């Protein structure tokens, strides 16, 4: 599988609004940075999957618009891992498989790509503030990720989305 992170070259309005909501409405004073990427996971029958995906992305614009989007293959871009901060990657998927799969047959360029699944990734960087990794993980999950009410969480609605949180 080849994982592709698709980000916006310029302003990401989702990030702006989410960050404003965290800082102003939800009083999250520890937020350093919030980034968002579309996630595309390619499965290809090619002997060189990386070359196949790169060739597809440079030759067709069905899934990525090079005029406004950036692409990073297999590597999460721009990760600043200073010791006074902690960075978490939150992968969000819709519970229904049909929402995660891209119709490969509709891709205009003939390819040896078998399947493409899509999702979303949020990258949250917070000040560490003397918290252990376990405390940070709990705080990220309850205060940033899982939305159950108007007073905490935002990024995932657990009633129709699944999520996974990993610390970098």
């Amino acid at each position, binding site marked *: 599988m080849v994982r592709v992170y698709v980000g916006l070259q310029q302003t990401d*309005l*989702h990030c702006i*609004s*989410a960050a404003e*909501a965290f800082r102003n*409405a*939800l009083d999250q004073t520890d937020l350093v940075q919030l980034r968002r990427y579309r996630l595309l996971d390619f499965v290809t029958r090619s002997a060189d999957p990386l070359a196949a995906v790169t060739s597809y992305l440079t030759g067709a614009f069905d899934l990525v618009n090079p005029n406004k989007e950036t692409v990073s293959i297999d590597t999460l871009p721009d990760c600043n891992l200073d010791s006074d901060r902690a960075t978490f990657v939150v992968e969000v998927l*819709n519970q*229904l498989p*049909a*929402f995660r799969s891209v119709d490969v047959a509709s891709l205009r360029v003939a390819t040896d790509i078998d399947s493409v699944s899509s999702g979303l990734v949020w990258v949250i960087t917070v000040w560490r503030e003397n918290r252990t990794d376990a405390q940070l993980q709990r705080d990220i999950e309850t205060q940033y990720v899982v*939305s*159950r*009410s*108007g*007073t905490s969480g*935002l*990024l995932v*609605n657990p*009633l*129709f989305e699944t999520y996974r949180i990993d610390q970098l």
Partner: protein
Amino acid sequence: MATPRLAVIQFPGSNCEYETQRAAAFYGFQANIVRWNALKVDLTAYDAYILPGGFSYQDRVRSGAIAAKLPIMQVVSEAASEGKLVLGICNGCQVLAEAGLVTEMAMAPNTRYDKPVGFICNWQYVQIQNPIQSPFTQYFSETDIMPIPVNHGEGRFVFSETARSELSRAAVLRYVSYSGDRSDSFPVNPNGSTDGIAGLSSPSGTVFAMMPHPERAAFLKQVPTSLSGVWGDRRRQATAGSKEVNGPWEKLFVGMLDHTRARN
């Protein structure tokens, strides 16, 4: 007796506030459009609240997710706890769901046969189960077949197991055919919503969240002349010269008004 005051809350991106205000005012409220950042002292002076349709914050992150976190929703929540009526229409329904003010539910993207279907825009029919459970639906009967337009991309109700088991205590709007037949499949159910639900009340009955637009069926002239059933017939008679004005969803606004008056 003072005229009850109703606030139609305008978020950045709301686009149905004016017709919502107009419908509420026509049926007896002193209805004002109130911005999302109004002072608490001004907000609490109102007797009832409507969160109208639209695309608050451009549906960023998820529909209604950003608006649900705003300080104004704490005011709305407190008002609902005091027994004041809160109605959420379409995007307002999504905001109420994200804020957790109805029950444990979410508004997920529309589906048709479990596949994404995108944005829908059509007239549907609904019936109300347990209408006496909520002031919003108190004047409807369970046999009423009510036409109403829908206009949304994320209108599929999903519930936690606990919330779903408690639905019998709520007033519930369900999609039906023009003849009142229930079906959980398209075309009767336009968006894959659980149990064909189009709206429901909180357990207390004072908060009501619905995806279809009652303000777009508040006046008879809004009903298409091509519609089947009683309301289509009335509309066709109106074009022939009858003076009838009030539309199918008069009862919702009057129910709100009467409850608010009695409470005051």
